[in-house]
């Protein structure tokens, strides 16, 4: 089984490749990247006008299985991922029950294999039942295939426990992904604290709620030598802490979500509960810092923090609605629209943020087109204009603040393990 992808702009930062080239896939692996490849009996994919890159990786999604299959299953999430241009996703463990130990990890892997869509890599609970009290069986989870450890959604309030989690996980070489938040400072806050929260009379979450936790987590990473990945960084000063940590050689990486680099807290003014998430949408100054960090490489990855919620739960008073929005099917479009087309990042920069780096952080074999690597590829049209219509989402949930947005840039063809799952915008 061969696939020849012809005449696309092939971008692979892992090898410094950027040019109009052909890619030959054979037996589920990348066989060759070159300017003249002849291949008999190959399925030919014409990629003229498209970017051809290692499959995109969303390293931060919430699938709701087990527990809330009405909101998302591993299968619907993996399908939404393909529609959004992702060949791999890493799912957070805050399900009911939590994905924990080898049993939980195997459950996800079996479901994902049966679905046969995007690859789904489980991130396992750091603490038992994500309660922040006792360490979960981290080694068993990693042995079964977990790519990282996290209590995402629930900050680990106990600094000593966070220290142990980083220390213990360090022997496996896997990252601890931190949802860095001081729960007491956030209190019952529902949006960014500042001028807009004051006007709206909604309880605020100050930037410092994230920053004191980022500072703590980085200190503990330096103390333990453990690998720390900070999820959904949303403030300028958090980025300063990351910069300092990296300068000192600490093993710290971080990600930024498309909604945080696109929207400010002004979006909350309509009381639309699809503007409610954690961390909250911040002010203009922070947005500028986030965009700058994505430009300079201080931020390692773009991740969606895809968080499906049912319509009944979101269609409530602002205080009562749950935190989180879906992102798998808008992430690439927003990154192209808001960062590439505004001249903030290059296409190679985008591939680095959405494929090369997240694959490296999670230790995946994908994220590159080196011969022998898995034939996971994304072909996208950076100029294709489209309108976000959540009624057409393949995710089981519709909670997006970007309904009706006109975006420039969309995934066209997605190949996972040598199988074409989406071709010319149509799911196969």
């Amino acid at each position, binding site marked *: 089984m061969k696939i020849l992808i012809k005449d696309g702009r092939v971008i692979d930062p892992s090898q410094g490749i950027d040019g109009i080239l052909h890619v030959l896939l054979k037996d589920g692996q990348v066989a060759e990247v070159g300017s003249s490849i002849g291949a008999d009996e190959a399925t030919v994919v014409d990629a003229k006008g498209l970017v051809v890159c290692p499959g995109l990786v969303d390293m931060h999604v919430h699938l709701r299985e087990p527990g809330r299959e009405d909101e998302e299953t591993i299968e619907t999430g993996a399908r939404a991922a393909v529609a959004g241009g992702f060949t791999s996703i890493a799912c957070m463990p805050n399900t009911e029950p939590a994905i924990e130990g080898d049993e939980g990890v195997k459950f996800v892997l079996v479901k994902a294999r049966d679905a046969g869509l995007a690859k789904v890599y489980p991130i396992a609970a750091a603490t038992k039942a994500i309660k922040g009290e006792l360490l979960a069986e981290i080694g068993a989870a990693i042995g079964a295939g977990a790519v990282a450890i996290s209590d995402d959604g629930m900050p680990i309030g106990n600094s000593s426990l966070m220290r142990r989690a980083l220390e213990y996980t360090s022997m496996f070489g896997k990252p601890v992904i931190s949802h860095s938040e001081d729960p007491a400072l956030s209190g019952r806050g529902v949006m960014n*604290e*500042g*001028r*807009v*929260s*004051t*006007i*709206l*009379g*909604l*309880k*605020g979450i*100050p930037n410092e709620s994230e920053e004191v936790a980022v500072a703590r987590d980085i200190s503990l990473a330096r103390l333990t030598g453990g690998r720390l990945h900070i999820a959904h960084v949303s403030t300028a000063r958090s980025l300063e802490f990351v910069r300092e940590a990296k300068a000192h050689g600490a093993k710290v990486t971080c990600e930024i979500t498309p909604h945080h680099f696109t929207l400010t807290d002004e979006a909350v003014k*309509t*009381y639309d509960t699809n503007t409610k998430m954690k961390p909250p949408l911040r002010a203009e100054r922070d947005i500028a810092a986030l965009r700058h960090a994505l430009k300079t490489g201080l931020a390692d990855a773009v991740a969606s923090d895809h968080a499906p919620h049912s319509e*009944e739960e979101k*269609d*409530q*008073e*602002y*205080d*009562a609605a749950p935190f989180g929005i879906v992102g798998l099917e808008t992430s690439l479009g927003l990154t192209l629209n808001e960062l590439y087309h505004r001249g903030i990042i290059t296409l190679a920069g985008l591939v680095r943020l959405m494929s090369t780096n997240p694959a490296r952080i999670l230790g995946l074999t994908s994220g590159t087109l080196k011969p022998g690597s898995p034939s996971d590829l994304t072909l996208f049209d950076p100029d294709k204009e489209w309108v976000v219509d959540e009624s057409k989402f393949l995710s089981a949930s519709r909670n997006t603040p970007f309904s009706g947005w006109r975006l420039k840039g969309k995934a066209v063809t997605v190949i996972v393990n040598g199988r074409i799952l989406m071709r010319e915008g149509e799911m196969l």
Partner: protein
Amino acid sequence: MKFERSDLLGLEDLTREEIESILTTAGSFVEISERPIKKVPVMRGLTVVNLFFEPSTRTRTSFELAEKRLSADTVSIAASTSSAVKGETLKDTAKNIEAMGIDMLVVRHSASGAPHFLAKALDCPVINAGDGAHEHPTQALLDLFTARQKVGRLDGLRVGIVGDILHSRVARSNIWGFTRLGAKVVVCGPPTLIPPGIESIGVTVSYDLNEVIPTLDILMVLRIQTERLTQCFFPSLREYSEFFGVDRKKMSRAKKDVIVMHPGPLNRGVEITPEIADGPNSVILDQVKYGLAVRMAVLYLLSGGELTSEDSH
């Protein structure tokens, strides 16, 4: 001329002209409550529901009486007696009430934005009777009306709002209202109860009531809720009163004709001493009296009534 809005959700987005036209219309309603037969037929056949998810005596009674004096049919629902305790959502509760053919909904809710949420979900006009820490537009309108009755034009006057600004919807609505009518507003309280970024909406901040009082034409005192103590916003009621309680000593430096307002209910001896609350500068009961006229005007205008023009008044 008609009032051009379908709901009254807050004062933030009302223009000076809109606020003044509501106040002028309210002026023509004051006299009705002074008649032996306190009733006019302008809302006959219309049904208004007062849906209150928070306890209220003054505001609810005021709305009910205003509705009755306009001859509307009224039903008042308190949260404790509604389906909310059975787990029904706010939207379902409101949709069910609307299905019974009501013409207007007055709502109070502890969640900021709840009236906006309902205004989107319902076809009938919605009046915000207080939402969380966001707005309480009819309270501010009656405060503006009272202030204008007592001191005349508000342009250039100095208004001090004292107390728990952070949690106060009355403060926010009054800030929009007074600044829009040309007054200068200073908010005063402990830093823990001053919301971040409040200066950016056009007020100044002071932590020293003694310094503020002599400069004021209007002093508005807010209620201190005792639950703020357990949340550590200040250490004791005694200490609060010492710094921010309005008493004779602090008032001795006030302008002679300053008016003292309070939206109620009073914590006598905490944020205000009885001698000030009941003293010659207090207009607290006038606020309540004029509240009725202001709410009649709002109900009348949202039901399609004509604005009273300045000339006819």
